[in-house]
């Protein structure tokens, strides 16, 4: 059962379902890297989900997932190319395997298939925007916290003379921070059944 709460949190794939965790924990170790991830995810969701929504619901689940992935794959190429123009290409290149991972994680998400259920256009667009904004905000918060606490810097500028918690710069620290953030954000919206 999905947690009750605002649409912004209920459809947050990272905090309520744990998707994109590898990208968030390994690559989003700074605000810049988190911004790159957010940009590509937003691009993917805004262009590929509405295109896939045109597919009739009677189409079998594996075919729907496949069509989504192919569409997202085609959108992914211009997304990466535009990211290379907007950000430092060497920083985009560092993402490596974590960018294609965004395509696959969205395909895994049950919430994404929920988004595709036919409804009013405004409602669909609101769901899509909340879903995208929720995950991107979570990426940015994680990136900021990890850069500040793990390296003592923000956007490359020194904030603390030494890193307060160097562990957070490593993937294992990233996952601990992700779980803590997820628990803190989702706890107030837990259903009675989940809390039992």
């Amino acid at each position: 059962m999905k947690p009750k709460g605002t649409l912004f949190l209920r459809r947050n794939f990272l905090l309520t379902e744990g998707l994109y965790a590898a990208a968030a924990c390994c690559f989003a170790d700074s605000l810049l890297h988190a911004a790159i991830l957010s940009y590509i995810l937003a691009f993917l969701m805004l262009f590929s989900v509405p295109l896939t929504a045109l597919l009739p619901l009677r189409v079998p689940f594996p075919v729907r997932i496949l069509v989504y992935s192919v569409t997202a794959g085609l959108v992914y190429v211009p997304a990466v190319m535009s990211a290379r123009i907007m950000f430092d290409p060497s920083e985009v290149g560092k993402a490596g395997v974590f960018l294609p991972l965004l395509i696959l994680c969205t395909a895994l998400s049950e919430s994404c298939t929920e988004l595709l259920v036919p409804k009013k256009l405004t409602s669909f667009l609101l769901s899509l925007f909340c879903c995208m904004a929720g995950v991107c905000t979570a990426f940015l918060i994680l990136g900021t916290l990890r850069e500040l606490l793990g390296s003592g810097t923000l956007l490359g500028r020194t904030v603390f003379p030494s890193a307060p918690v160097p562990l957070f710069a490593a993937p294992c620290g990233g996952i601990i921070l992700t779980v803590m953030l997820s628990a803190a954000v989702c706890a107030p919206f837990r259903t009675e059944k989940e809390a039992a």
Partner: protein
Amino acid sequence: MRMSVAFFTILTQNLVFTRLLGLSGFSFLTQRGKSLLPSSLLVLCICPLNTVLLFLLQSLIADPVWTAVIAVCLTLLLTAAVDLLLRVLLKESASAVEPHLLTAACSGAILGILWLSDGSVSGVSSAFSYGIKEGTGFFIAAAMLEALKPAVCSEQTPAVFRGWRGIYLSAGLLSMAAACITASVLS
């Protein structure tokens, strides 16, 4: 000696603990009350085939971005074909296999793309052995997390950390342990 070094490398340097790959699939299965083992066994089967397929594909497409996209699409195309075949053959029972197949395909695809980005494989046999090594590492990591599942899903665990969050925390701690063991061996 060679075998023990290989086992040590698989145990501590596998992609689940070093790059946390496959965790999304574990979360997907945990939330549906499914075991992690069938899916990781499928990864062990898909991974060597996928790396060989990618090796052959790599020589045809020069741009790594397009190669990654085609690799994802090709893996999911094959998975969808197998899934549809299972639906025809097994009817209702196919729904039990479907989540495992989907997560295995996603994990297999991502391990293949990672191999592409490493670019350290020179031949088909080398690609196959890389796939076997990473697939085995993935299976061992999944088995360790599956063994921890009763504890992290029990009532003694705080409710907010039960389920996928508990699995993620365990993976984080095991990842930390693997990094410490590797660092101490290297030093």
